[in-house]
C-alpha cells in the first residue's frame, strides 16, 4: 500500500479493508483505528466497529460497492451484512483468504 501513513509490515498479505475491492474475502486480523479518514476518535470508531461485529477472526467479504468512487461498501461480516464508508473500513486490518480451488 503506497502512501499508507501507517503501513502494516507484519504480514504482506495484510491490508486495510478500506483498500480492498469488491469480491475480497478475508479474515479480520485486528483493528487499528489510529490512522483513518474517519471523523470519529480512534477509540469511538473501534467501539462502533466491534459493536457491528468486526472482531478478530471474523470472516469478511466485500459484497457491494457504491456508485461514486466505489464508496460506501457492503461487507459481509460472518453472517450479517454491514454498510460502511471506506474511511471507516480503514481501521479493519484483514488478511486475504487463501483461495482453495
Amino acid at each position, binding site marked *: 500500500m503506497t502512501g499508507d501513513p501507517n503501513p502494516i509490515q507484519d504480514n504482506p498479505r495484510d491490508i486495510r479493508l478500506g483498500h480492498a475491492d469488491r469480491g475480497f474475502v478475508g479474515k479480520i486480523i485486528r483493528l487499528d483505528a489510529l490512522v483513518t479518514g474517519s471523523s470519529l476518535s480512534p477509540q469511538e470508531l473501534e*467501539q462502533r466497529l466491534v459493536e457491528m461485529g468486526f472482531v478478530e477472526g471474523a470472516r469478511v467479504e466485500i459484497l457491494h460497492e457504491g456508485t461514486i468512487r466505489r464508496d460506501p461498501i457492503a461487507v459481509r461480516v460472518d453472517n450479517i451484512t454491514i*454498510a460502511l464508508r471506506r474511511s471507516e473500513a480503514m481501521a479493519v486490518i484483514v488478511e486475504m483468504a487463501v483461495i482453495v480451488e
Partner: protein
Amino acid sequence: MTAASLRLALVGAPNTGKTSLFNSLTGSRQKVANYPGVTVERKSGGFVTPEGRSVTVLDLPGTYSLRGRSPDEEITRDIVLGRFDGEAVPDLVLCVADATNLRLTLRLVLELKRVGRPMMLVLNMIDIARRRGVTIDLERMSQELGLPIVTSVAVRKGGVDELLKRTDEFLARSHEASASEWTTPTIADLKAAQREADRIIATAVTLPTKPDTLTTRIDSVVLHPVWGLVILAVILFVMFQAVFTWAQPAMELLSDGFSALGQLIHDILPESWSLVQSFLQNGLISGVGSVIVFLPQIIIIFLFILLLEDFGYMARAAFLMDRIMGGAGLHGRAFIPLLSSFACAIPGIMATRVIDNKRDRLTTILIAPLMTCSARIPVYTLIISAFVPATTVWGFVNLQGLVMFGLYAAGITSALTVSAIAKFFLWRDHAPAPFMLELPDYKIPRLNSIAIGVFTRAKMFLYRAGTTILSMMVLIWFLASFPQAPAGAEGPAINYSFAAMIGHALEPLLRPIGFNWQIAVALIPGMAAREVAVAALGTVYSIEGGKEAADQIGQVLAQKWTLATALSLLVWYIFAPQCASTLAVIRRETGGAKWMVVTFIYMLVLAYAASFLTFNLAQALGLH
C-alpha cells in the same frame, strides 16, 4: 399482584422486529409522544395477559449497546438503569433478538444482564430462522445465558401467545432485581462479550451451511452501481405517481366536504351572527380543512415508507444515496425525508426521525421546506398560466412546463446549497457522522403491522392539525377579519382588516421586490397554507366564486401585474417560509422555538434576496 399495571420494556438491536412485536402485543392501543426535552419518540402501549394482568409496554429505541452514543440510545440506557426522571424502572425487560441473526443481540443481552433487572430473551422471527435451517437449542442457550428464553413470530396471529403465557408465569413469581454491575463497557469488555456471545452461539446454535441466497440475489441487482440507482429511480417514480394521483380524489373529496360543511354552518346560522359565521366557516373549518386535505398524501407517503422499511429496502436506499448526498453534506438517511417533502414538508420533517445523528437531522429539517411541496403547485400554476405563454421552445419543450421544472430545480439546488453552507458554518467543528448500518435480510412486509404504523402517524398528524396548527389558523383568521369593514364601505372587507394594515405597512418593504399592497395582503392568509394565497388574491381583487374563479384571477392578474412582478412572486414562493404548519412542526420536532426562528429567518432572507434580484433583473431586461 398489585392492581397497578406492570411495566414491561422492549429492548433490542435495530431490525430485530421489535416494533412488530410491540404492534402485535398492543394492537392499536398505543401512544406516541416525545420524551420530555428531547425529540426522541416515546412509544407506549398496553395489553392484558391471559391471566388478566394489565401490562404497559414501552418500546425503547433500538440500540447495539448501552453506551448511549445518541439521544435515543441514552434514553434506552437511562430507562433500563432506572435513572430517567419521570419514567419508572421496568418490572421486566424483554430483550428482543432476531433469531436468524443472534451475534449482535447476544452481546447486548450479556451487557443487559449486568444491569440486574428481571429479564427475558425473546427470539423473534423464529419461523424464518427455522425455514432457513437455523436450529437453536433453547434449553442450552437459556442455561448458558442464565435467562428464560421464549420464541415468537411477531407478525403472525398467535405468534406471541407463548410470550404472553410466559410473561404471566414470570410475573406470578416475585423477582428481585439485583444491584446493577453495569459500567460503560471498554473496547476490551465489548470484545470479551462478543467472544462470549460467539461461544454461546457455537454451543447452542447450528447455522445452515448456505446463507440466505434470496437476499444475496436481490442485493446483487438492487445494490448494483448502475441498476441499483435505476431501480431506486423507478421506485421513487411510482411513489410520486401514487402520492399525486391516488391521493387526488380523496383530497378533492375532503376539500369539497370541508367547503360544504362550512357553507352548511353558514346557512344554518342566522345572518346577524355574521362574526360567528365567519369564524366557523373561514377560520375554523377552512383553516383546519386546508391542513387535513393533506391527510391522504401523508397516509400514502407513510404507507410507502413503512413498506420499504419493513421490506428492508430503506437501508439499501441510504447505501445507494450516501455518497451522492454526502457531496452536499447530507447523510444517506436524509434521502427519504427530503423526498417526502415534495408532497408536503410536514411528513418529511416527521420522517427525519430515522436519522440518528442530531446535526444531520437538523440540517435535513432546515432544508426540507425548500423542496417544492404540493401546496405550491396551485400558486405556480396560477401565475405560470397567467404570464407564461404556452409556446414550444427548442422544438418540443412546452415553455410553461419548462418554467415549472425550473422552479422545482431551483428548490432542490437551493436546498443542497443551504445544506452545504449549514454544514460549513454551523457544524464546521463537528466532523460528519459516520455511515455504518446493518443491511438486514429482506422480509415480506406484514400488512397488519404497517397498518398500525400508518394509523399512528395519521393520528399524530391530526393531533397536530387540531392543536398547534389550529391556533395558527385562528390567529390568521383574526388578522384577516378585524377590524370589520364599516357599514356601507366599498371593496372587500379584508381591506379594512389588520391584514390589510400589515399589508400596507409592509408595502414599502416589498416594493423593491415588485409586490404591491394587494400581494402583501394575500401573503398573510397565505401563511396558513401556501395555496390559500390564491383565494386571498381573488378576495383582494374582489372576485367572487369558488374554483372556477381561478381562471378569472389569472386574467385579472395578467392585466394588473407586470411580468417582472409575476416572476418575482414565483421566486418568492420557492423560498419564502409561507407555511405556518411547517414552522409549527419544526418547533415540535426540534423541541423548541430556536430552529423554527432560524428556518423562518433564513428562508425569508433568501426569498427577499432572490425576488429582489429577479425583479430588478427582469425590469432591466424590460419585461413588463
